[in-house]
């Protein structure tokens, strides 16, 4: 059976030879036009003049469109219809699209766009949390509040209590393939769209709306993305819509890709948060009550900010059974690019909040932070299975599958945590300049879209008369290996080798009404939908063969590339041909919807998640106390993928997610100046981890468990959960800084060299 085998990525051979085609690599038809946006250089203001004559006169320009030139109200928002494709009189962030240049080449369009003379009557932008609160600039009427118990009362009577506040930066996706789209006009006004998108149905929906067409007139295809990470859930809408509008206007194929600097200016990033906490605890390290205030900078439009901020609240407990909790979440509207989905979707921000609390409590008590965490864990799944009462999340969901007690014990033992912690203390006592730190952090991440209706998926499978299989489903491939995992499911259901299964591009004409490939849901949802489709065909074939061989369908077995019916054996190809000759349909759709979900996001109660995925990490770092410079020396990870569909791909997801998470909290700093301009808009100024930043020692192991819920082959989702293992790197830096003085380091994130240095001043001098 193909499932559970560590097979390479489905397109690996194409990737290593440079043959894999991304949107910008698809050969464009002759006469294809290229687009570029003219961008606002002002963060907030009213457009008073727009002289585009120099743009129109530039070489290669075919047309220039403004909002007034659009026949319909083209909008790029995935939620609130509050993002005009081109600014309508007002601008709301630096980098907002004002006009659209259509030219004969990518460079001609970009060069022409720079020639516009735009007059904007600038207003003071709302940029910071404080400015937004002062102006009451927010989404929704007021803060959302979730909780359980009575946190204020429990805090008032807590044996010990402390408060803190920190800033938690955002994150640029830095998908290595920038946003890109191409649209080919078809007969009768139909549109064929190629888009680098995690959400082809959303592209279809938004393009159809912008053109005034029914969705059936628009077909969207995506074979692969060069990285997504959430940044292609909604941020590709503008390019696809622009191409479609231009294709409709000119009748020619149109193509658009953002230059990297433009991409980083225009597109949304991970939400940055300010988090305030107030925690009550006892002398044993047990937290008795905690209250959080989340302040999220959402940018100029709503985009996906509400569910992102919700998910942050839903992970404010992380792995801890908290009796009294209150979480108050403010979604602030600022004159910055609209913050959007990014791996973890708010979960990481919520989790950093409680991990900071645990770290602060442990420091205050002089206890081992790993031990404080364990004392606050939810009851284990094993204990619950034996009748112990399950812990309940702040949103009222019982935690019945909690794996972290055993996982923590295993990881702390295999990474030699206690001995290394003692050795680090010895090192720090003997070395005045280079200090080391070590930290453990756990992850409990909820799996399912919190918008319950999104938890559905479709598939389309054909078996041809030669036995070859055409596989299609609604999920998109962005490097995570989804297509290969799903092909393994299909091959396993038919009992055929992998080369019998053709993986095909995601296509809204084959599987409609799909959800974004997001929320780590890709293999859970599409795996089950494909299984259903395959089983339908397999059952039809079995029924046919049972009739032919005078037996019952359950006597027909599909294995090893053969079909076995009693004493008879035939190749899968012969079985398919036999079914075809007998006029049996060899094509089927499959559908799946996640069971057991029930969620009220206003009241903040219910079961938003089908299950939880777990993981834990120990990171060791060294810092230079003279400069704040630092590096990760070693990382040890134990992560729960249930019964892995593909251990090679899952390990790759875990390693990459950890490094990306550590990058978020250490080196990746977004800087806006006082006018609202993003000053870190290229890899020259925005520092994602490089090959030389990878931990010297990097041990990653899969937990050998099974999903306790009935998922595809009892596997667990893996896309987002391991991202938050990177929190251990931030905590390890805090531990190293704490070795330099009595005060708590109170690091902000990202803990860049500068922030580590500031932390050193705090612990040494109380600054």
């Amino acid at each position: 059976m193909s499932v559970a085998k560590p097979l390479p990525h489905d397109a690996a051979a194409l990737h290593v030879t440079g043959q894999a085609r991304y949107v910008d690599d698809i050969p464009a038809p002759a006469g294809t036009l290229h687009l570029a946006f003219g961008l606002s250089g002002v963060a907030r203001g009213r457009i008073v003049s727009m002289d585009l004559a120099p743009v129109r006169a530039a070489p290669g320009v075919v047309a220039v469109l403004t909002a007034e030139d659009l026949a319909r109200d083209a909008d790029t928002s995935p939620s609130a219809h509050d993002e005009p494709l081109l600014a309508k009189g007002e601008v709301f962030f630096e980098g907002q699209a004002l006009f659209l240049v259509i030219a004969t080449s990518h460079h001609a369009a970009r060069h022409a766009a720079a020639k516009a003379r735009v007059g904007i009557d600038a207003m003071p932008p709302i940029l910071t949390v404080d400015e937004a609160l002062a102006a009451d600039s927010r989404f929704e009427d007021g803060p959302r509040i979730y909780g359980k118990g009575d946190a204020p009362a429990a805090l008032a009577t807590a044996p010990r209590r402390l408060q803190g506040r920190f800033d938690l930066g955002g994150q640029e996706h830095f998908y290595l393939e920038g946003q890109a789209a191409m649209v080919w006009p078809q007969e009768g006004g139909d549109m064929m769209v190629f888009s680098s998108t995690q959400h082809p149905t959303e592209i279809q929906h938004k393009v159809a709306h912008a053109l005034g067409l029914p969705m059936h007139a628009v077909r969207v295809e995506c074979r692969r993305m060069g990285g997504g990470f959430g940044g292609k859930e909604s941020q590709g809408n503008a390019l696809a819509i622009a191409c479609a509008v231009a294709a409709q206007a000119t009748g020619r194929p149109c193509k658009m890709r953002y230059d990297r600097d433009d991409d980083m200016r225009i597109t949304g990033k991970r939400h940055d948060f300010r988090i305030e906490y107030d925690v009550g605890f006892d002398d044993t390290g047990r937290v008795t009550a905690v209250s959080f205030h989340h302040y999220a900078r959402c940018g100029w439009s709503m985009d996906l900010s509400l569910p992102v901020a919700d998910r942050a609240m839903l992970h404010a407990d992380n792995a801890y059974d908290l009796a009294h909790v209150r979480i108050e979440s403010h979604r602030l509207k600022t004159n910055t690019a609209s913050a959007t989905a990014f791996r973890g979707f708010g979960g990481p921000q919520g989790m950093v909040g409680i991990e900071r609390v645990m770290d602060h409590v442990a420091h205050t008590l002089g206890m081992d932070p790993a031990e404080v965490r364990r004392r606050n864990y939810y009851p284990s799944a094993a204990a619950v299975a034996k009748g112990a009462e399950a812990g309940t999340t702040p949103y009222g969901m019982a935690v019945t599958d909690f794996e972290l007690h055993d996982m923590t014990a295993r990881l702390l033992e295999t990474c030699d945590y206690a001995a290394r912690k003692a050795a680090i203390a010895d090192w720090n006592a003997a070395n005045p300049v280079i200090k080391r730190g070590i930290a453990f952090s756990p992850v409990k991440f909820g799996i399912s879209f919190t918008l319950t209706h999104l938890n559905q998926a479709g598939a389309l499978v054909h078996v041809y008369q030669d036995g070859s299989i055409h596989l299609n489903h609604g999920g998109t491939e962005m490097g995570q290996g989804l297509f290969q995992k799903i092909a393994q499911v299909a091959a396993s259901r038919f009992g055929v080798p992998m080369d019998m299964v053709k993986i095909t591009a995601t296509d809204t004409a084959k599987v409609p009404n799909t959800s974004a490939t997001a929320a780590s849901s890709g293999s859970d949802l599409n795996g089950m939908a494909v299984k259903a489709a395959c089983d339908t065909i397999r059952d039809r074939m079995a029924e046919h063969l049972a009739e032919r061989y005078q037996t019952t369908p359950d006597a027909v077995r599909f294995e090893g590339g053969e079909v076995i019916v009693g004493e008879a054996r035939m190749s899968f190809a012969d079985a398919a041909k036999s079914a075809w000759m007998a006029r049996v349909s060899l094509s089927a759709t499959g559908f799946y919807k996640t069971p057991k979900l029930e969620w009220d996001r206003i009241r903040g109660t219910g079961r938003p998640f089908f299950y939880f995925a777990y993981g834990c990490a120990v990171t060791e770092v060294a810092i230079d106390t003279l400069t704040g410079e630092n590096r990760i020396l070693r990382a040890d990870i134990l992560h729960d993928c249930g019964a892995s569909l593909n251990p090679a791909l899952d390990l790759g997801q875990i390693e990459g997610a950890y490094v990306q998470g550590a990058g978020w909290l250490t080196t990746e700093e977004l800087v806006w100046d006082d006018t609202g301009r993003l000053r870190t808009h290229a890899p020259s100024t925005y520092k994602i981890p490089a090959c030389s930043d990878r931990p010297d020692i990097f041990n990653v192991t899969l937990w050998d468990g099974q999903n306790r819920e009935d998922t595809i082959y009892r596997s667990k989702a893996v896309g987002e959960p391991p991202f938050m293992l990177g929190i251990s790197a931030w905590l390890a830096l805090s531990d190293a800084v704490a070795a330099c003085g009595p005060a708590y380091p109170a690091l902000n994130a990202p803990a860049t060299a500068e922030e580590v240095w500031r932390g050193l001043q705090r612990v040494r001098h109380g600054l």
Partner: protein
Amino acid sequence: MSRIHVTTTINGDPVEYLCDPEETLLDVLRDRLGLTGSKEGCGTGDCGACSVTMNGRLVCSCLVLGAEAEGAQIATIEGMAKGETLHPLQRKFIEHAALQCGICTPGILVAAKSLLERNPDPTEEEARYWLAGNLCRCTGYDKIIRAVMDAAAEMREAS
């Protein structure tokens, strides 16, 4: 502005093209010659996705003008395999699952091949620092390093 006539060699084949004076080698490869294996990740020489070699030297093709290729020997990812036979680095990247979205992979392979041509027996640290100019957002780099080290070992044995 008149175009420039360039005669060069790409992956061993003689090639001629006309390009604009300001056109980069990357744009020539991708848009004029259909060699789309080299990718534009940043356009400023910081990400390495467009890595090729020019007269044996590793360069970012987004920082080289098409006109500069006159008389040069250019090698791109498309020339790394010999027919159906993959280069050991290519094979090891598949074996070690050293890629995910794959868009950085061509540049990293070109850079790694250049390393092994200069230094057939690099330490892990040398490999890591040589590849520090090639960004990958997916893998976390661990499997990339393992694949490069494994390929280097195999190539030493074979030579």
